[in-house]
């Protein structure tokens, strides 16, 4: 009898465990290793990673190959290769750079010569952007169309856009499928050797989300590891005071080390933004809010000294020109953002010494670790052994 009691108790326990456990035990086909993003000091904790594309070590590794592989354009002739990295170069914070021989002045164009509508944006700390990619924020979770919401979508768009790779996604997918080494990597990352544009996009997006800059001189100052020079410190004070250069409301500071709000403002570059001056790719054409005529994203100032030319249209070649602009040459229009209150004096009116200090501070946002990190650089060999 004792045995029977013991048995029934054990049996009931089993019943409880089996029926109370709701999770289904599914067969595990492939098990990629989760990739953890460490949150640097002072950085936001909420990441913009779509539910259907979790970060994995295998996905990131594959994404790095694809990011640098010109065959993603669906062409294999050496003269006609174009990859993401043709324009997005690590040494320039993933912009093409103002001294790029292929793109004079830093003005990019597609494989067939069609200019990009705007100049470049850096690929840096994008995993913390929740308010829209591109200069006008077109690619965001608010976009009614499902295919225009995140970094993934900028991959297929890049493959077909006339001003970028100007190819088609079927060719791209087939060429990668037939390149030895890739199917195995797709199997490891996504559980299937059959390559889809969706998975190409997912892998590249995962790689881009790892491009994190958090070790500039200013970061080390924030963490108490390094002191700024007197000129840099004065520049920091100017940057974060209204009576100084007044940059922080839009470009961040100690409380926002991304050095961008990722929001959109009209910062007073022109007097007219409608009629013949209308840019159909400004923020207004996304939000429909008339206050957004001539508004664009306030880009991050990290590594900014390497990412000229400046503004969405590349109108300024140097940081000095930008500082001159904010100091003396703001232009009033009904659309100017209220945060540009120094418009009343045409600008913040910095003295020559203040301009030097402000620039010195902005240069403390250069992150050499980011620019040379081997994890972000071109792989020595592609999966098929090609260089």
């Amino acid at each position: 009898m004792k045995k029977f009691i013991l048995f029934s108790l054990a049996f009931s326990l089993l019943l409880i465990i089996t029926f109370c456990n709701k999770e289904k035990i599914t067969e595990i086909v492939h098990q990629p290793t989760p990739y953890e993003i460490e949150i640097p000091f002072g950085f936001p904790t909420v990441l913009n990673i779509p539910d259907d594309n979790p970060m994995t070590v295998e996905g990131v590794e594959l994404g790095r190959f694809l990011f640098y592989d010109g065959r993603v354009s669906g062409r294999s002739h050496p003269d006609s290769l174009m990859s993401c990295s043709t324009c997005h170069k690590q040494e320039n914070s993933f912009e093409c750079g103002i001294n790029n021989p292929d793109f004079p002045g830093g003005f990019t164009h597609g494989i067939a010569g069609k200019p990009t509508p705007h100049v470049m944006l850096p690929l840096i700390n994008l995993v913390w952007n929740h308010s829209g990619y591109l200069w006008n924020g077109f690619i965001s979770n608010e976009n009614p169309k499902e295919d225009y919401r995140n970094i993934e979508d900028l991959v297929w768009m890049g493959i077909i856009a006339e001003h970028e790779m100007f190819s088609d996604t079927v060719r791209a997918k087939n060429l990668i499928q037939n390149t030895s080494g890739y199917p195995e990597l797709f199997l490891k990352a996504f559980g299937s050797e059959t390559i889809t544009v969706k998975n190409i996009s997912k892998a590249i997006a995962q790689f881009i989300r790892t491009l994190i800059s958090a070790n500039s001189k200013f970061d080390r100052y924030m963490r108490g590891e390094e002191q700024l020079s007197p000129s840099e410190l004065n520049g920091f004070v100017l940057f974060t005071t209204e009576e100084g250069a007044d940059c922080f409301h839009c470009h961040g500071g100690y409380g926002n080390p991304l050095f961008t709000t990722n929001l959109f403002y009209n910062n007073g570059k022109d007097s007219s933004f409608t009629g013949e001056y209308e840019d159909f790719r400004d923020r207004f054409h996304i939000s429909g809010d008339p206050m957004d005529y001539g508004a664009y994203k306030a880009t991050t100032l990290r590594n900014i000294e390497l990412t000229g030319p400046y503004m969405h249209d590349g109108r300024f070649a140097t940081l000095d020109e930008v500082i001159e602009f904010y100091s003396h040459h703001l232009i009033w229009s009904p659309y100017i953002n209220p945060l540009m209150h120094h418009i009343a004096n045409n600008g913040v009116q910095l003295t020559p010494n203040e301009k030097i200090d402000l620039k010195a501070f902005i240069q403390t946002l250069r992150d050499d670790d980011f620019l040379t990190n081997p994890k972000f650089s071109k792989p020595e060999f592609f999966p098929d052994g090609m260089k």
Partner: protein
Amino acid sequence: MKKFFIIICLLIFTFIVGCKKNSESDDVEKFSNLTLKFAYYNEGKLLEFDTIIYENEAGNKYLVNEIQYFISDVILHKSNGENILIDEWKDIHYIDTDILSTQTWKIPDKLTPGNYNSISFTFGISEAKNHSLMFLNPPERDMFWPEYLGGGYHYMKLNGKWLSDENTINPFDFHLGIGQIYHSYPDSITGFIQNYFEVNLPSSSFELIENQTKEIEISMNIENWFRNPNIYDHDVYGGDIMQNQEAMNLACENGHNVFTIKIIN
């Protein structure tokens, strides 16, 4: 056989008890819920944004573009003298005219039904709680107040434009937060002034009814920021005041009369 029957019963009993989720206690407490909503008025009418239709006491014609602010330590005062701090673990609430979700605050607390005399809160964030880097994510993050000027967070950004005495439409940033004492302006800061203040909402008694959710609107009456007791003139104080303690002080004195409540249901 009897034993066997007992064992079967026991078995079924264990099964049921074991599966029951979190066993809630049986004594049914009586409670009510509270939801706070936030709205904006000018001269009694709902505020319209981005259109220069308002005139303040000083005669400035102006428009409002956006308002972003914090209230904290909201306290319900009961008739029996008891004070209840609501939503203790999220005691600082951010409100943004551009973000709908911030304009409703569902208080998670289970409140005791009965009569409440009034509501009070801190406009902004008290010195004890206003720490830099406590909000790492937007939108709260973007309220940071620079370290050099005292750190922590803006209490409020009210951004707009006014028709200046030079007949130009200029932006104003009516930003409130920690003020500074200067040895020689705008350099050498020798001290800071906490400008946050307590708001006791006038005629804010209400009754919580058992098993019901009370909705109360906290209304910001914009014109009072510039009117009572101090007449605030944009032509005098200009576009920015974060480093102008005199202006922030006038504004905060007016702030006591800016908020009212409305019982929605």
